[in-house]
């Protein structure tokens, strides 16, 4: 039972991060029908922005502000930085290709992905960067918390899971209860009709990039609090986020959340009960199975076209 609880906790932590990444894919795909393959690299840049701000604020061992403020500051900085990056990517890499054949923005997305990964490597080197959250407040983030049975739920995991769910809830409220959110939904449903109804499509698209990239930035920080980051980490993280989005139904916000969590649990349970060798393989088997048998994902809608 303890093993099950521990693995569930592991899956929930990982899945929360995957869900945040998946939301970015879904937001952009829902509106632009574009697979933003640079999204994983925005996640990576977010983790680096967080690392940079952490160093500016004195690092993990000697921070100049309280730990809670430090965590909030690095997360907000990463979200803000990634939001700006998202706007820049949309403006320079995707907008000029909006009316081009669908393959063109896809290639552009791959180009942006490589550009970001290699630029970061040139600027900051290839080595791994560790937030060293273990040293914050003498290990309090790892050792304080509460117990479920014999399993300790550390403070850091609680912070990651709660932060991810708060961000997802905020996005949900934004998407369903605000005018901008409704404009996003309308644009997602039919871009041309939305434009005819007076919705500023450019603004909506930029807003989707801002939201998606900010969530990726937050995911970058939440992930890097537990594991080292490096310039090429975005590729695999992006693939996992994309898989989560496909599982949930790409374009669907609740689907992306569900897909991320399912993927996190699948990885954790596979490693815990089947084999530590097969978890990455399983992720992509799931992706292939969904593409073959349920391409619209769990909560997505089938794409019906008139011929």
């Amino acid at each position, binding site marked *: 039972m303890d*093993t099950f609880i*521990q*693995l569930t*906790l*592991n*899956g929930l*932590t*990982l899945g929360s991060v995957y869900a945040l990444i998946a939301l970015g894919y879904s937001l952009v795909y829902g509106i632009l029908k574009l697979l933003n393959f640079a999204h994983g690299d925005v996640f990576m840049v977010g983790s680096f922005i967080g690392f940079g701000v952490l160093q500016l604020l004195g690092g993990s061992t000697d921070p100049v502000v309280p730990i809670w403020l430090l965590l909030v500051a690095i997360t907000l900085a990463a979200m803000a930085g990634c939001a700006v990056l998202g706007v820049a990517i949309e403006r320079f890499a995707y907008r000029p290709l909006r009316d081009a054949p669908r393959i063109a923005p896809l290639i552009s997305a791959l180009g942006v992905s490589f550009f970001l990964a*290699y630029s970061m*490597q040139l600027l900051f*080197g*290839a*080595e*791994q*960067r*560790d937030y060293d959250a*273990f040293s914050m407040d003498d*290990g309090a983030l*790892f*050792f304080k918390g509460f117990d479920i049975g014999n*399993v*300790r739920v*550390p403070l850091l995991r609680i912070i990651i899971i709660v932060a991810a769910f708060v961000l997802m809830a905020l996005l949900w409220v934004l998407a369903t209860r605000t005018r901008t959110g409704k404009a996003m939904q309308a644009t997602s449903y039919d871009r041309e009709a939305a434009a005819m109804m007076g919705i500023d499509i450019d603004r909506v698209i930029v807003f989707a990039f801002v939201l998606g990239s900010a969530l990726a930035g937050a995911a970058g920080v939440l*992930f890097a609090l*537990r*594991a*080292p980051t*490096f310039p*090429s*980490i975005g590729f*695999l993280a992006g693939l996992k986020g994309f898989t989560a989005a496909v599982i949930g139904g790409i374009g669907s916000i609740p689907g992306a959340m569900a897909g991320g969590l399912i993927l996190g649990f699948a*990885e*954790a349970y596979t*490693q*815990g009960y089947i*084999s*530590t*060798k097969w*978890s*990455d393989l399983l992720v992509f088997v799931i992706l292939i199975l969904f593409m073959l048998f349920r391409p619209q994902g769990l909560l997505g809608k089938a794409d019906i076209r008139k011929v």
Partner: protein
Amino acid sequence: MKRRGGVVLALATIVVAALASTAGAGSSAVTATQAINCKSTVKLALITPLTGGGGFIGQEQLSWSKYAVKTLAKKYGLKVQLLQGDTPVEKGPGEALVVAQKFISDPKVLVAIGPATSGGVASASGALTAAGIAQISPSATRTSLTKGANREATNAFFRVVPGDYIQGPTDANYMVDKLNAKKVAIVDFQEPYSVGLADAAETVLKKKGVSVTRLSTSVNTTDFSSLVTRVPGDAEVVFFPTQQPADAQTFGQQLLEQGKRAKVFGGDGSNSPDQFKLAGSYVSNFAPDISGIASSKALIDGWKKDNPSATLGSFGPPSYLAVEVALNAIKKACDAGKGKIANRKLVIRNIKKINLKTSILGGPFRFSTKSNDPLNAKFYIFQIQSNGSYKLVG
């Protein structure tokens, strides 16, 4: 018509490719036997991951190789140029062969410093040797490169560090004899370095009656929580031969997070005081901490002057030694040929005969007569102290 045009185009491509490959083979055969004037610039080719996840290894090797060329070329009266070939680990071992092909066609390339990784050596050694280029690796430790019936490297491959056939048993013996381990978990990363090392340690541990739990994960894993869950609660040691020191740090922290008290024991790949600093953990390394070697102090000071922001690690100094061996052998070949090297294979012969009275790694240096591994080399065990420093304990 279009279809026929496509077939013609495909055939033409095949013919051109075949001609190109023949031309390449011819040029490597020519360059292998081409004479080299020792007064002209001779070239060394560093083959190492300069970018990607293993980039920190290559950058360290590059800085020390550059420093070695700068300080030793004058000593040996040679004009030396250091070429760089990037082999990111993410591109797989085959990238070393792609990079090697570029160097093969340059007749002035006499020695390859590398490939850095064992997989890279296995991939490129044959082609480099066929072109007469010696390979001196500062970090490839896989046993089967130089030993066994299915040797993966040729006779022109040398390494200045000992192989995993020494590291694995050294680590395992230390776990049993000094740490009194009865239960050990071993994690490999499904790539040749860690699998080879994990196998070597597992064999010795099982022979000594230790209960071994073998685990395996992808080299891309960065969050080890679920792997940690699989580590038996009563394991005393986890052998974790990663090539990413920060991963060893994360793994150790996640062990503690889940209340497991096993000590993390890393191989030479996790030897980095900057990144793996979890107090009480262990690492082995093919080189001692050269900052404790009095005769190497001047070299360290000079290197630090050229690389003020870099930290002294364990991957760099063997590169200095590899360059020293290469230049020493080139010099001897030049002297024997009275200012000319008839062909680059002569350099290979002189490398085999190398005999340095002192080396940057401490003590004299020469190759074994039985293999091209260093004679009497050993691995060293360090324990990480509470201030993050590495203390030599075995």
